């Protein structure tokens, strides 16, 4: 065998450490910044000295900020990767779980779960998964036939499914009158404020295996971009690969939505940005989206905590403010 490393591995060895460093830096910034001033170095002290020390600052950092930053990184990674996978399956650079209404579908499932009094895990999570699969099915049926790959049919289907989901969500919200209302609304906009280590741990346990599976399918995603027929004649078992991609992506996205609500456009912004810098090879993009998407969400959440003078806003406000204009720009540019 040739001892020379394949070109893809060489590129991964330069790209991943760089993105890993960015993620580490943004996580550190996320831990040290907040409404209670901690200063750059005291956060470092607190992290080094561990959880057992006393003092308010240590408690804030270990009990509140650290799990929250971990959660944000995990959520950002999941949603970016979700966007990347949908773009490959549907061969459309504008596809994304939120835009397609799949996030909305899992939100309906999750809210229904909350109202029925299920616990976050596994009840609400499974309801969200069911909701996402139902909307996915709906979108595929609506845009199927010859126009499946046409941008307009797909995006319009997504817009309609999204509108319908929004109506159902509003209906459920308006039927709710007790204290759960505020929780639901805040959660809907994408919120990390109620995160503990155990929640981050549960989400990691569901999503990390999906990340690995998707990395192993990354070369198949490249081939899928050549179209169903060509992919099959190049050795891809289309039905099996597509099913694995759809189910694992829906699972991790709905697990994420059931924990943190609707965070839009992350799956659009990050894959697009990374594709511009690193090219379209999914073997590089899958790990890059995990690290880059994680950094992006940590930064958005830190901004959401740091920008308001009083209290904080949901991170979803920031991701949508960045993402929606970019989506419009991409849509305009994609028309000849």
């Amino acid at each position, binding site marked *: 065998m*040739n001892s*020379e490393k*394949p*070109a*893809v*591995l060489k590129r991964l060895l330069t790209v991943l450490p760089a993105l890993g460093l960015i993620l580490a830096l943004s996580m550190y910034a996320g831990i040290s910044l907040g409404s209670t001033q901690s200063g750059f170095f005291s956060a470092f002290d607190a992290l080094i000295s561990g959880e057992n020390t006393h003092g308010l600052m240590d408690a804030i950092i270990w009990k509140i900020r650290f799990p929250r930053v971990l959660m944000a990184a995990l959520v950002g990674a999941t949603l970016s990767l979700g966007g990347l996978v949908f773009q490959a399956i549907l*061969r*459309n*650079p504008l596809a994304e779980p939120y835009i397609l209404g799949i996030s909305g579908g899992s939100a309906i499932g999750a809210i229904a779960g909350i109202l029925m009094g299920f616990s976050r895990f596994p009840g609400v999570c499974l309801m969200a998964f069911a909701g996402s699969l139902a909307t996915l099915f709906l979108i595929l049926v609506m845009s199927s036939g010859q126009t499946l790959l046409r941008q307009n049919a797909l995006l319009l289907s997504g817009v309609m499914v999204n509108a319908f989901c929004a109506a159902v969500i509003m209906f459920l919200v308006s039927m709710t009158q007790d204290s759960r209302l505020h929780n639901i609304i805040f959660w809907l906009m994408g919120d990390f404020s109620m995160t503990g280590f155990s929640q981050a741990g549960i989400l990691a346990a569901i999503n990390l295996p999906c990340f690995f599976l998707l990395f*192993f399918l*990354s*070369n198949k995603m*490249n*081939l899928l*971009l*050549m*179209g169903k*027929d*060509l992919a*099959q*004649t*190049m*050795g*891809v*078992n289309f039905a099996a690969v597509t099913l694995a991609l759809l189910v694992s992506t829906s699972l991790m996205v709905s697990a994420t939505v059931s924990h943190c609500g609707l965070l839009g456009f992350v799956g659009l912004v990050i894959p697009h940005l990374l*594709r511009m810098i690193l*090219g*379209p*090879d999914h*073997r590089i993009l899958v790990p890059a989206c995990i690290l880059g998407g994680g950094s992006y969400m940590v930064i958005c959440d830190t901004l959401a905590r740091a920008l308001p003078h009083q209290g904080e806003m949901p991170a979803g406000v920031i991701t949508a403010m960045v993402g929606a204009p970019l989506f419009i720009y991409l849509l305009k540019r*994609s028309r000849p």
Partner: protein
Amino acid sequence: MKQAVLRIRDLSFFYEKSKVLESLSFSVEDNGFFIIIGPNGSGKSTLLKLMAGLINPVSGQVEVLGKSVGAYKRKALAKILGLVPQTTSMDFPFTVMDVVLMGRSPHLGMLGLEREEDIHIAMQALKFTGVDALSSREMGRLSGGERQRVCIARAICQDPKIILLDEPTASLDLAHQIRVMDLMEKLQHEKGITIVMVSHDINLAAMYADTLLILKDGRIVDSGPPRDVITFKTLEQTYGCTLLVDESPLGNYPRVTQVPGKYLKTPNKTVHYPRENLNDA
């Protein structure tokens, strides 16, 4: 006698309730240049998809190297059979090299990590099709003819025994049409690959095919060497219009000429069918 690499036995296919192909049986010889022609909706493209194992027949079967196409694993079939579609659209910024290397994936592992050797094979394929200078260009920025040749290079990289092509010249100008057809002939002669092509262009088909299969409404009208198959009677029956058949100025090939309606007002006076007479004799 040459061995058959593709054998079609009593093949039928339906979409919904309408019959697309009805009890077709024929075989494609090893290292042949086999072209399927016929009017729109005759079932040509469906037949090609059946041969590539992309759809399953309602009845009958397609055998590749003596084994039913459905019995192959996708990856194993990809080492025997390559496909070049009519057009390839690409919304993602893959380079020519990226796309051609994809053709190596049936020979590689799960992640398709390509070795030096594979890059060499890809470069050779690009040289063979004459687009090696474009290797770092983006697919989306190539002309139709260039893209078609990249797609052929990708199929060559699979190292197949058979290449199936769906109207590869349909959207190309005259120069690129000949270039693509010459390329396929070179593949047949120099690499020993069997070429199976669906085409609309009967004159091109006549100059390159060693076997021509004429399809109409899902049935075989005739098949054999172009000289035997391209006759006034067969063509009129197939296309439902008057077509002249004579000798190509290059000699040796039948040439088909379409007849505008204004010439048909005085039948038997201006229209002659020299090839037809030849065939009757």
